[in-house]
C-alpha cells in the first residue's frame, strides 16, 4: 500500500495539469487532497508496522540482465521519513495557497518532487533509489526559477540560486552514480538489490575509496560544510513551499542516502586508515569534523545576517550538522538521534520558512530584519508571533519539542565516542540560541517603532491570516510537540530498525 504514496503523487501531478485553467481553487484542492492521502497512507503504514521488520511493498524484476529490480520496501527509518514527507508536503501546499501565477504547473512540479522523495525513501534497489533521487532534482529548478521570490523585481538572483542548487545536487548525484556503479561492478555485476549488497563482503580497500565518494555525494544535498553553499541561497530564493520542502525533506534525502547507502552498504569505509594525515585517521574523523564545522559555521553566519530568510537558511546548515554528526558517532543513540533530528528539523524548518516566507514576507514584502524591526509584528500579527516563538523554542532545542530529544541523543552519542567535541557542539548550541533569539526579537518584539515612526501606516495594510496558513502552522506545531512529548512514537520505529540485520555490518565495525 505504501507504494501508492509515489503513484498518487505522480498521478496527482498529471491530474493537476488537467484541471481547468481559470479555476485555481480546484487545482489547489486536488493538490491538497493528493498530499493528504499520501500523509494518510504514511500514517496507516506506520500504525500497522511491526518494529524491526522490513516490509516489502513491491518486488519485481525490472531489467533482469543487469540485476535491476523494482524493489520497494520500508523499515522504521523509511517510515519516519515518509511521515515527515507527508506532513511537509501537506503543509507546503497549505502555505502556497496564495500562488496565483501558473498555478497548475506549480502544483504539478511540486507533486513530482514529492513523488520522487517518497520514491527515494521507499527504494531498496540502488538503481531505483538513484532514479527517484534524480527525478527530484529537476522540479526544484523550475519551482525556484519560476516562482521564487525576486526582491525588487530582480529575477537573476533566483535563476542563479536555482541553477546553483541543481548543479550542486547533480554533481553530488554524479559522485553517487560513480560510487554505486563501482559497487555493482565490485560485487560481480549481478544485482543492485540493497538487501543483498548490505551483506556482500566488499574488499576493505574498495570500501575505503567508494565510501567517501558516495557519502560526500549525498552529503552535498544534506548541506555538509563546505558543500552547503547551495542551501542558503536556494532556500532564500525559493518560493515558500519550495523552501519548506528543500529544508524539510530534500536535505533529508541527502542524509538518508548517507545512512542508507553509504553507511549501510560500505561500512568498512568508516574504519581506520592505518595511517594519519593532518591528524585524521579515518573518514569518520574527517566527516565528524566537517559536521562540527557546519554546526558552528552555520550558526555564526546566521548570527549576522540581516535577511530573515538567510538566517533560517543558515540555521538549516547548522541543524543538518547535527544529523551528520549523529551519523558519525556510529552509536545506536547517536544514529537514533540523527534520524529523529531529520524528522524534527524537517518539521521545524518548514515552520520557520512558512513564517518568514509566507506569513511575514507576503504581507510586509521585506525580509530585512532592520525594516521588520520597525513594524512591531508581534502586535499586528499575534498568531504569527506565537507560532514563530514556538518554532524558535523548538529550534533551539527546548524540552517538550522534538528538537530537544533529537539533539540530546546526538550529544550523548558524541559524548560517548568523541568527548572533546561535546564542548564545541555546546558552543554551537549557544550560538543557535543566540541567532534565534536575535531574529525573534528583531522581527517580532522590537520596539524600533518609536525610533522610526513609519510603522503606523503599515498596520492597516497587513492582510489577516487565512485558514490554510493557520491549518498548516497547527499541523507542523502539532507534529513537533507530539514527538517532543512522546518521542517513543518514533524511537520505537527507529531503534529496532538500526538493530536489524541490514545494519549488521555497520554494527560490527565499531558500534558503541
Amino acid at each position, binding site marked *: 500500500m505504501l507504494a501508492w504514496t509515489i503513484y498518487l503523487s505522480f498521478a496527482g501531478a498529471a491530474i493537476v495539469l488537467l484541471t481547468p485553467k481559470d479555476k485555481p481553487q480546484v487545482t489547489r484542492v486536488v493538490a491538497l487532497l493528493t498530499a493528504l492521502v499520501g500523509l494518510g497512507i504514511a500514517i496507516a503504514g506506520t500504525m500497522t508496522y511491526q518494529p524491526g521488520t522490513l516490509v516489502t511493498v513491491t518486488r519485481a524484476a*525490472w*531489467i*533482469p*540482465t*543487469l540485476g535491476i529490480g523494482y524493489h520497494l520496501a520500508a523499515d522504521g527509518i523509511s517510515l519516519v521519513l515518509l511521515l515527515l514527507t507527508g506532513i511537509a508536503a501537506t503543509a507546503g501546499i497549505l502555505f502556497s495557497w496564495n500562488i496565483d501565477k501558473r498555478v497548475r504547473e506549480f502544483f504539478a512540479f511540486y507533486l513530482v518532487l514529492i513523488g520522487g522523495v517518497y520514491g527515494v525513501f521507499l527504494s531498496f534497489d540502488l*538503481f531505483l533509489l*538513484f*532514479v*527517484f533521487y*534524480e*527525478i527530484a*532534482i*529537476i522540479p526544484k*529548478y*523550475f519551482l525556484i*526559477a*519560476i516562482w521564487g521570490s525576486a526582491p525588487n523585481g530582480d529575477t537573476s538572483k533566483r*535563476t542563479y540560486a536555482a*541553477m546553483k542548487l*541543481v*548543479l550542486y545536487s*547533480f*554533481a553530488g548525484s*554524479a559522485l553517487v*552514480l*560513480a560510487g554505486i*556503479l*563501482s559497487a*555493482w*561492478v*565490485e560485487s560481480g*555485476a549481478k544485482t543492485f538489490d540493497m538487501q543483498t549488497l548490505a551483506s556482500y563482503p566488499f574488499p576493505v580497500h574498495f570500501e575505503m575509496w567508494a565510501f567517501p565518494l558516495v557519502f560526500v555525494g549525498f552529503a552535498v544535498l544534506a548541506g555538509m560544510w563546505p558543500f552547503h553553499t547551495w542551501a542558503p541561497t536556494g532556500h532564500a530564493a525559493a518560493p515558500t513551499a519550495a523552501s519548506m520542502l528543500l529544508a524539510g525533506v530534500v536535505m533529508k534525502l541527502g542524509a538518508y542516502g548517507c545512512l542508507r547507502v553509504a553507511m549501510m552498504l560500505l561500512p568498512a569505509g568508516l574504519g581506520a586508515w592505518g595511517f594519519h594525515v593532518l591528524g585524521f585517521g579515518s573518514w569518520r574523523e574527517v566527516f565528524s569534523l566537517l559536521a562540527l564545522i557546519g554546526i558552528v559555521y552555520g550558526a555564526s553566519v546566521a548570527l549576522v545576517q540581516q535577511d530573515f530568510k538567510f538566517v533560517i537558511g543558515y540555521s538549516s546548515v547548522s541543524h543538518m550538522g547535527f544529523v551528520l554528526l549523529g551519523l558519525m558517532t556510529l552509536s545506536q543513540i547517536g544514529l537514533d538521534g540523527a534520524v529523529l533530528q531529520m524528522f524534527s528539523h524537517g518539521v521545524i524548518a518548514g515552520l520557520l520558512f512558512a513564517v518568514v516566507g509566507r506569513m511575514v514576507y507576503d504581507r510586509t514584502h521585506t525580509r530585512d530584519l532592520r525594516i521588520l524591526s520597525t513594524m512591531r509584528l508581534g502586535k499586528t500579527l499575534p498568531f504569527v508571533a506565537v507560532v514563530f516563538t514556538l518554532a524558535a523554542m523548538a529550534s533551539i532545542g527546548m524540552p517538550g519539542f522534538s528538537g530537544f530529544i533529537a539533539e540530546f541523543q546526538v550529544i550523548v552519542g558524541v559524548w560517548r565516542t568523541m568527548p572533546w567535541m561535546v564542548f564545541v557542539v555546546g558552543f554551537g548550541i549557544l550560538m543557535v540560541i543566540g541567532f534565534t533569539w536575535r531574529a525573534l526579537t528583531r522581527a517580532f518584539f522590537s520596539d524600533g517603532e518609536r525610533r522610526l515612526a513609519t510603522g503606523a501606516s503599515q498596520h492597516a495594510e497587513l492582510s489577516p491570516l487565512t485558514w490554510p496558513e493557520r491549518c498548516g502552522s497547527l499541523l507542523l506545531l502539532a507534529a513537533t510537540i507530539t514527538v517532543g512529548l512522546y518521542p517513543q512514537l518514533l524511537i520505537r520505529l527507529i531503534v529496532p530498525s538500526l538493530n536489524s540485520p541490514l545494519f549488521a555490518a555497520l554494527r560490527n565495525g565499531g558500534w558503541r
Partner: protein
Amino acid sequence: MSAVSYSQLVWVTLPEIALVIAALVVLACDGTVLRGAAIAQRRGVAALIAGLGSIAGMLLVERGPASLHLAYGMLVMDGQTRVVQMVLLALTVLTVLLSDAMLTPAAARAAGEKTAFTRHIGEYFALLLFATVAVLFLVSTQNFLLIFIALEFLSLVLYILTGFDKGSRKSTEAALKYFLFGGISAAFLLFGISLIYGLSGSLDLGQIALASMRPDPLWMIAIVMVVVGFGFKVAAAPFHLWAPDAYQGAPTISAGFLSSSSKVASFFIFAQVLTVGAFGAAGSGVWHGSTPGWALVLSAVAAFSMVMGNLAALAQTSLRRLLAYSAIGHAGYMLLGMIAHTPQSIASLLYYVFTYALAVLGAFGVLAALEAQGIDRIADAAGLSRRAPFLSGCMLVFLLSLAGIPPLAGFFGKFWLFGAALNAAPQMGLFWLVMLAILMSVVALYYYLKVLKQIYVADAAEGAGAIRSGLWTRVTLGVMAAAVVVLGCDPWLLMRWIVR
C-alpha cells in the same frame, strides 16, 4: 571463391530494393502527375510514398534472413544488424513525418509565408530514401570495400541534403565545409584500408581479424587512419569541425537526418570495424595498464570529445550549434562503449545511440516547427511554454533525455553504458574515463537547462502570440516523446532485442 547466388542476393537486399523503388516512384510522380500542383500537395504525396516505402522496408527486414554471411562478408546479417536496420528505417519514417514543419525556408520566414525552401520536393524525398539505402548497406556489411562504397554513397547524399536550401548562403557554406572535410577524411580512411589490405591480404573483417593478431607497427598507422576517417563521420573531436556549421546551415530535416540515422549507422559500423576487424589490435585504455592499440587511441579521442563538446556547448547562443556541440560530447560518451569492447558494452552503445537519435531527431523536429516563427537563438525561445505548451513539453522531454535525467531513455542509456564500461576492464581500469564522462554530464545539464530556462522561466517578448504547428508534426513529436519516456521506464522493451 564461392559462387554468389543472385536470387539469394536479391532476396537479402529486398528492403533496399523497396526503398530504391519508392525513391524512383517519388521522382516519377513528382515529375509527371504532380507537375504544377501546389507545393503542400506534392509534399504530401512524396511523404506518403517515402513513408510507405520505409514501412515496406521494415516489413521486409522483419521477414528477411535472420543470419547470413555472404561473399567475403559483403553482406552480413545477424540479430543486431536487423535491429539496427529496423531502427534506421523507423527514423526515416519519423523524419518523413516531421517534414511538414521542416519545409519552411529561411527566406520565407522573414516574409511570414509558409512555403517550401525548394521547389524540388521529389528530389528531396528521393535523396532521403537513397541516404536510407546507404545506411542500410553500411550496417549490413563486414567488407571494407562495401563499407567504403556505402559510406561514400551516404556522404554524397548528405552533402546534397545539407546544401539543399539553395537560397541560403549558410546552407551552401555548410555543404562546402562538410564536403571538404568529408573528402579529406575519406582519403584518410582509404589510406587506412589500403594499409590493412596490404597487411592482411583481405577486405573481409573476419579475415582481417586473424591477421590483426600478429603485431606489426604498420597496424598502428592503419588504425589511426581508420579512426580519423570514422571519427569524422561520428563527429568526434578533434575531427568535429564540420559539425556545428553543418547542423546550423543545413535545412532542419537534413540536420535531423544527419544527427540521427547517419550517426546510428556510422557508430555501428565503426564498432564493427574495430571490434570484429581489428580485434587483435585492441590494446587497452586502462589507467596505469594502457597498451597501444585502438582502445588507447579512442580513449584519447573520447576524453577530448567529451571535454571539448560539452565545454564548447556552454558558450553557444544558437540552438542548433548547441545541439551540434552536445552531439560531439555524446559521441565521446558513445566511444566509451567501443573502448570497453565487450558484447555488453557494444549492446549498451547501441541502446545509447538509438535513444540519442530519437531524442535528437525530436529536438530537431521541435526546432523545425519553431523556426517557422524565426526562432533560432536560445534567447528567442523565451516564454515558449506559454506560446506553444505542447512543443515545449516535448522539448523538455527530449532535452532532459539528452541530459540523462530519469525516467527518460537517455538516462538509462548513460547508466548502462557507464556500467558496462566499468565492468569491462579489469580492476575497473576505465574508471577515470567513466568519471570524466559523469562529470561532463553535469556540465551538459547546465546548458540544457539554460535552454529550458528560456522556454519555461523567461517571459515572452511583448506581443508574441501562440505558435501554431501542423497536426502531423504534433502527433509525431508526441509519439516520439512518449517513446522516450516509455523506453526510459521500461528499457527492457528495446534492450531484449539488442542483447540477444
